[in-house]
């Protein structure tokens, strides 16, 4: 039995199920595109529409979106495919995975496709805050697309009840603490029925913590991605502030706060202020049954917040023609108008300033001013923590943060341990 016969037999077993793959293999001018969202969500419809719109304008090219689940699952899928020689031509993966992808030799820089002056202008048109996570060593490895940042959401009704001005969010760390103290309610037995503030700390506490540490005036990692600064006194001070909110002032739930259910606590009035991503804007808008506000994160020594979310990457193992086609698609989908529409439809931040000058965006922002908060915060935003061996270096910080929040380590000691661990991992990369 040769291979062809075997395959026929195997396919007969699976019935019609095997057919799509075969049909797909026969078409050559196709860009496979891994996208980090699960099949069936509202975003898949948008991406499908983009893909068919692009195909309508470029008859010879076809973008084939493949929905691969969460970011974590998508990068596993993309790297597995890369190692077995058949990677997706284009993918959207976390901006922080840039060093990992470079180390795996999986992606090509965009610079080699940028030839004309128009291309150069396009490359320079993105928010610099987003490009910090997309460039290293003088090259551009990713193009920002599905990007977000951390903002403060507050419940205007609860502000009114507590005697605060419902239109004014806290502007500084001291105000944030004072407001939270007024907003925390206890019943007769002393149990808290409503928390003042909630900063989630499950899963990826480093991201929210980066808001605090930036505000305290520190930067967690250098642009080359080979050195961290976890034990900086400013970082320790930021962690101390977070720990104090819960343990000393008791205005923040103790221990680890679940990321996924924080918006739900907010809807159910269990918490009056929360820090979470701008990606939750549409969710909060649909589900909050009270007026809410969205504001910049309060300032410590300065304003600050990390950026987050996904970039476009082009695979190194794809053919030259496929790479060029993928580049064309990336340029097509990041025009000011499309970036604006994407932001309106999803709640992600539009990746270039001129998107906010488009008619569609102006109309939307007039209706829903909260959509502009992310843009106003971007000038103060810093790159999301990203280094070589990103998963492990970030985990060192996460473990330290969670140890401090649960009270098993003092902030100083927790950050010193995290820094020592990161040093050990990063030494070979210098």
């Amino acid at each position: 039995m040769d291979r062809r016969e075997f395959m026929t037999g195997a396919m007969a077993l699976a019935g019609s199920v095997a057919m799509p793959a075969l049909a797909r293999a026969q078409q050559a001018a196709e860009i496979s595109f891994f996208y980090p969202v699960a099949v069936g969500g509202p975003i898949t419809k948008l991406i499908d529409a983009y893909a068919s719109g692009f195909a309508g304008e470029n008859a010879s090219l076809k973008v084939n979106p493949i929905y691969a689940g969460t970011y974590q699952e998508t990068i596993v899928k993309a790297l597995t495919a890369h190692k077995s020689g058949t990677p997706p031509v284009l993918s959207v993966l976390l901006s922080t995975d840039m060093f990992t992808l470079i180390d795996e030799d999986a992606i090509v820089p965009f610079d080699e496709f940028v030839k004309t002056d128009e291309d150069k202008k396009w490359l320079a048109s993105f928010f610099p805050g987003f490009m910090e996570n997309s460039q290293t060593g003088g090259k551009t490895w990713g193009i920002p697309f599905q990007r977000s940042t951390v903002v403060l959401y507050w419940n205007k009704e609860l502000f009114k009840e507590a005697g605060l001005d419902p239109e004014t969010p806290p502007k500084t760390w001291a105000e944030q603490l004072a407001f939270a103290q007024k907003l925390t309610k206890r019943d007769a037995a002393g149990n808290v029925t409503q928390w003042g503030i909630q900063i989630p700390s499950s899963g990826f506490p480093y991201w929210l913590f980066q808001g605090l540490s930036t505000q305290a005036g520190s930067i967690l990692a250098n642009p080359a991605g080979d050195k961290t600064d976890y034990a900086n006194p400013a970082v320790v001070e930021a962690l101390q502030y977070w720990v104090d909110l819960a343990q000393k002032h008791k205005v923040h739930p103790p221990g680890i706060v679940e990321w996924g259910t924080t918006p739900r606590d907010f809807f159910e009035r269990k918490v009056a202020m929360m820090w979470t991503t701008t990606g939750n804007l549409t969710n909060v808008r649909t589900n909050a049954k009270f007026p809410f506000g969205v504001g910049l994160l309060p300032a410590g020594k300065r304003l600050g917040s990390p950026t987050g979310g996904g970039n476009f990457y082009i695979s190194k193992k794809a053919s030259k023609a496929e790479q060029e086609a993928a580049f064309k698609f990336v340029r097509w989908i990041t025009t000011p108008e499309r970036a604006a529409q994407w932001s309106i439809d999803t709640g992600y931040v539009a990746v270039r300033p001129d998107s906010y000058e488009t008619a569609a965006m102006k109309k939307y922002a007039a209706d829903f001013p909260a959509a502009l908060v992310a843009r106003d915060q971007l000038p103060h935003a810093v790159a999301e923590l990203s280094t070589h061996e990103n998963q492990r270096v970030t985990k060192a910080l996460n473990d330290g943060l969670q140890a401090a929040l649960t009270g098993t380590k003092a902030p100083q000691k927790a950050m010193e341990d995290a820094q020592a661990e990161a040093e050990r991992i990063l030494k070979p990369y210098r």
Partner: protein
Amino acid sequence: MSAAAKPAKLPAGSITRTDPYAPTGLSLTLESFGAILLALIWVLPLAYAVWAAFHPSEFTTRFELTAPLTLENFSRAWAAAPFARYFLNTFVLVTLILACQLVLGTLAAYALARQDFWGRDVAFALILAQLMIMPDALIVENYRTMAKFGLVDTITAIALPYIASAFGIFLLRQTFKTVPKELDDAARVEGASPLQVLMKVYVPLAKPTYIAYGLVSVSYHWNNFLWPLLVTNSVEARPLTVGLQVFSSTDQGIDWAVICAATLMTSAPLLVGFLLFQRQFVQSFMRAGIK
């Protein structure tokens, strides 16, 4: 799992009271109490899922007995992804895998247990070695093989790496070894061919092992996630577990009510099947010695 807690109790009920090993008095009370406690702990998450699934999402974390009941979560979950197709895919997948595993496993186990051939022990040792390797470690290599066959994004590709199951072969070989050689000889004297001996003598006697192994295999592949996620790209080939991801978007907030409804929905066939055939399963497990 409760499967471990429950079988321990079952014989006590099914055997007459004069059993000298049956617990009595204080130890009976203690043992019953322990079993009930374990069962309660096991059933709690499931009970919570049922609660959350049948109530509006305001009541997900608020327990009021008078809360209104609703089926809306189920309809929302069903509409969130093409679940009908996913159910079909999962069903095809587990059937395909189990059928291939049983045929290959039976033949291999028979050869290893009763046929004398050169290199038999080495072959068996190699099969056993497969048991020691985590399937996850082979993912890249498996993917490469599937890509070479042009099978990426098919149900066949999900099934193929699992159809020669070392565990199944090992289990069946051990069972066949316990079949008295006299039965085999008697069948041969009557003129049965080796294949007939296998089908008429060994397979019927190994029925409990087949049932127990079938349950393990079906539930494992019903729940398997990573490999199907990696090797499939389209709705036509993806099983239920990959379809369930639609609810795990941490960027957009998590709705426990819908997640619980979807989880109950997708695990219902397995749960119902287990409850219906509980007695057979438990007995098979005891006879086959799998825990």
